[in-house]
């Protein structure tokens, strides 16, 4: 697995040496910091039935910033290599295509986690600064961290596939954004003119990211979303592998 770690660190390095990484990180952290503060203010004024965590990660503002992360993180993964032609040197080195795909994917997931961590630093910071217990349980923090990691891992795999399909990073970003959005809104179809409890709404609730987050943000570990996001990530990565290998198909 040595090529894996070499490629992994090369990807990380090239991401964190570009100014874009810090712009994204600053904007995302700022948006969520502002959101966190407004949530705390709102809860001071009016009692809420839900926890702070629930309100923060259930907010539309959070998801707007969150979903934009993935095209930005993943658009360059393969599209840039194809555009510059470096993919030829990469794939004619004695490494397996699977190692290349996994290393790039793992690096993008690592970048995503680094971007996410400041948000989770808010909770201990809040306690430290105010000396008060915030309105949430530790289980809820861990549950939502798990949930966001899984959802992120899945979204990064969408971006990885999109990036392997084109030589233009901008098109890769747009593809990723469209599919990440489509998946997000798919979950809302369960309320779409249907009676709750019908087969349709039950089926659609399996796809619902918000539904998954609602459960996990309570600190409940449900195995269904875990299996769901992991299998889809594996599926999309194996499709990426096929896309890269397709140049070697014998007609």
């Amino acid at each position, binding site marked *: 697995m*040595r*090529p894996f770690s*070499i*490629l992994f660190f*090369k990807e990380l390095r*090239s991401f964190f*040496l*570009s100014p874009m990484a810090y712009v994204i990180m600053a904007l995302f952290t700022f948006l969520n910091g502002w959101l966190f503060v407004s949530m705390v203010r709102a809860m001071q004024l009016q009692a809420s039935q839900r926890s702070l965590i629930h309100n923060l990660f259930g907010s539309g503002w959070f998801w707007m910033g969150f979903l934009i992360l993935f095209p930005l993180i993943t658009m360059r993964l393969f599209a840039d290599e194809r555009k*510059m*032609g*470096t*993919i*030829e*040197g990469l*794939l*004619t*080195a*004695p*490494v*397996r295509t699977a190692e290349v795909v996994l290393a790039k994917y793992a690096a993008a997931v690592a970048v995503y986690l680094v971007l996410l961590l400041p948000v989770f630093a808010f909770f201990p910071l809040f306690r430290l600064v105010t000396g008060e217990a915030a309105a949430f349980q530790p289980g809820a923090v861990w549950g939502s961290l798990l949930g966001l990691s899984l959802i992120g891992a899945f979204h990064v795999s969408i971006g990885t596939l999109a990036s392997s399909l084109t030589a233009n990073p901008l098109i890769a970003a747009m593809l990723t954004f469209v599919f990440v959005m489509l998946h997000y809104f798919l979950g809302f179809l369960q309320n779409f003119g249907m009676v709750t409890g019908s087969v349709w709404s039950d089926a659609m609730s399996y796809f619902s990211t918000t539904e998954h987050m609602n459960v996990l943000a309570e600190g409940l570990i449900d195995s269904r979303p875990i299996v769901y996001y992991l299998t889809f990530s594996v599926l999309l990565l194996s499709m990426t592998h096929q896309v890269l290998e397709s*140049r*070697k*198909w*014998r*007609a």
Partner: protein
Amino acid sequence: MIEARHLTKRYAGRTAVDRISFEVGKGEIVGFLGPNGAGKSTTLRMLTCFLSATEGTATVAGYDIYEDSVEVRRRIGYMPENVPLYPDMRVGEYLRFRARLKGIGHRASRGAVGEAMETCSLTAVERKMISTLSKGYRQRVGLADALVHKPELLILDEPTNGLDPGQIRQSRNLIRELGERHTILISTHILSEVEMTCGRVIIIDRGTIKASDSPRNLIRRLRRPGAVLLEAKAPATAAARLAAIAGVKEVNPSEDRDGWTSFSLTTDPQSDVREAVHELALKEGWKVRELSSRAASLEDAFVDLLKEETPSDPVESKT
């Protein structure tokens, strides 16, 4: 080192490489020569396992390019066309990354990179960003990348493309030097390059091999009628006198200023008529400014070879 058998690449409705077979022996420097779009790059990409062959196969150092592609790639140093590099990396850093990727250990990579930079005279730019390098330096970084893991076989796709004449000469010398340690297969559409560096030339056009021989033999085999140029102060009637010399087939006079005339003589391939021309000029009292014979070059051989095939070729137009 390389054994290609019936290597074929077909794209939808178009055959880029059509059942070509050739061999490259250990220690040879072989030039792959052909016009743009002849299928050179496609062939090299198949050999380096970047593309797979539609039909046929090849072995590199005894390993099949399809079955044992990782083993094949371990033994090849490949410089793709136009030398793609990561612009945001420093030269030394890039080469170390490539060396490590090609399986050289952390410690050993330092020495290997130092050596490769030494060979390609890159030591001075080790800490420079690749994006700031000139074309000539980039080419050398690509070359250093290709040979950093000391492969048995170097495959260079148009290594001197886009360089200035001085750089072309430098890289030609470098390639010749490398030929002492590696087997080399280079592709090019520049003839003089092949003529000067390669022990053997494979001429490829529209996906098929047209000839495979040493540059010298190719020139001999494809000897076109010789040509002699005479520039003299002579009357117009001189053309007829020149045409009368044995071995001269045709004379084309063209008048210059001040009574000087250039005659270009087409002769039999075997005969050298310069002596006879000189004697004629002495006898007639013509003043001679130039008398030279133009030997056929590989370029002529190449052009002739391609011309031969042009009229009858219905293969491409179908589908």
